[in-house]
């Protein structure tokens, strides 16, 4: 009876998110260049977001999933353009 309360995909997602957190933590526990560190952080953060969206929020479970993917991807693209556009013009000096 207890077992049915802990579905496999949720447990896998939780363990995965803990492992990804430890992987992200490696950037401050090991000596590495800033470029490698930022790459690791980007990959682990993106993977964490996918774990939440797919395994916990079940984004793909309804018929309108294509519209949901489009909406989320659109928001993420606008967000990335805002972040990197601002960094490009105001910090990196192009």
């Amino acid at each position: 009876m207890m077992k049915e309360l802990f579905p496999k995909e949720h447990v896998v997602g939780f363990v995965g998110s803990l492992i990804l957190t430890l992987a992200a933590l490696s950037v401050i526990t090991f000596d590495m260049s800033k470029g490698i560190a930022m790459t690791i952080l980007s990959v682990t953060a993106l993977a964490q977001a996918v774990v939440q969206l797919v395994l916990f929020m079940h984004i793909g479970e309804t018929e309108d999933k294509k519209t949901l993917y489009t909406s989320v991807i659109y928001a993420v693209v606008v967000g990335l353009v805002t972040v990197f556009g601002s960094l490009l013009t105001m910090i990196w000096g192009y």
Partner: protein
Amino acid sequence: MSKENTSLPLEYRTEENRLKVFGFWIFLGAEIMLFATLFTVYFVLTDRTGSGPAGIDIFEMPPVLLETFLLLTSSFLIGLGVHAMRIGRVKAMIVFYILTLLLGAGFLAVEIMEFVTYVNEGATITTSAFLSSLMTLLGTHGAHVTFGLLWGIAIIVQVVKRGLNAQTANKAFIFSLYWHFLDVVWIFIFSFVYLKGVLG
């Protein structure tokens, strides 16, 4: 479209409920952009520390790791709560939702102590552009968690009083989407504010 589609989980059974879930995803899209602008301001101003401390001087990893663990676990628990709801285990669902909110409250307590520590160290919201943008970003996330606690309590009260039906299940599911989303935002704060900040 038919009024009730019993092949779907309870929270999706009416057309209105399906549209509410859909609308909430659109709202989350707007929230993504809101936090993107706050991250933008933080990244642009992160080196403008004036005569105040930089991130590497004030960030302490143990409480931040505790906050991360609390929020990750609460996100897992509310996922289990939705699963329990879908298999009709109302009591288990309520227990998972209560545990979710308790961990959320724990997260908030640690974050408030962190803010108090910053202020005691002379790092206030008016000290530098870096700290203004940092506290606006963290504060907006913390305000979302605070609002989530109140919302979550209201959801639990409704499920206890009215039991599970198409309406309460729909509200409980939409709240779970909000709570998972706050965890996603925190992961980005953890990675690109704290870990990046400690890297210097």
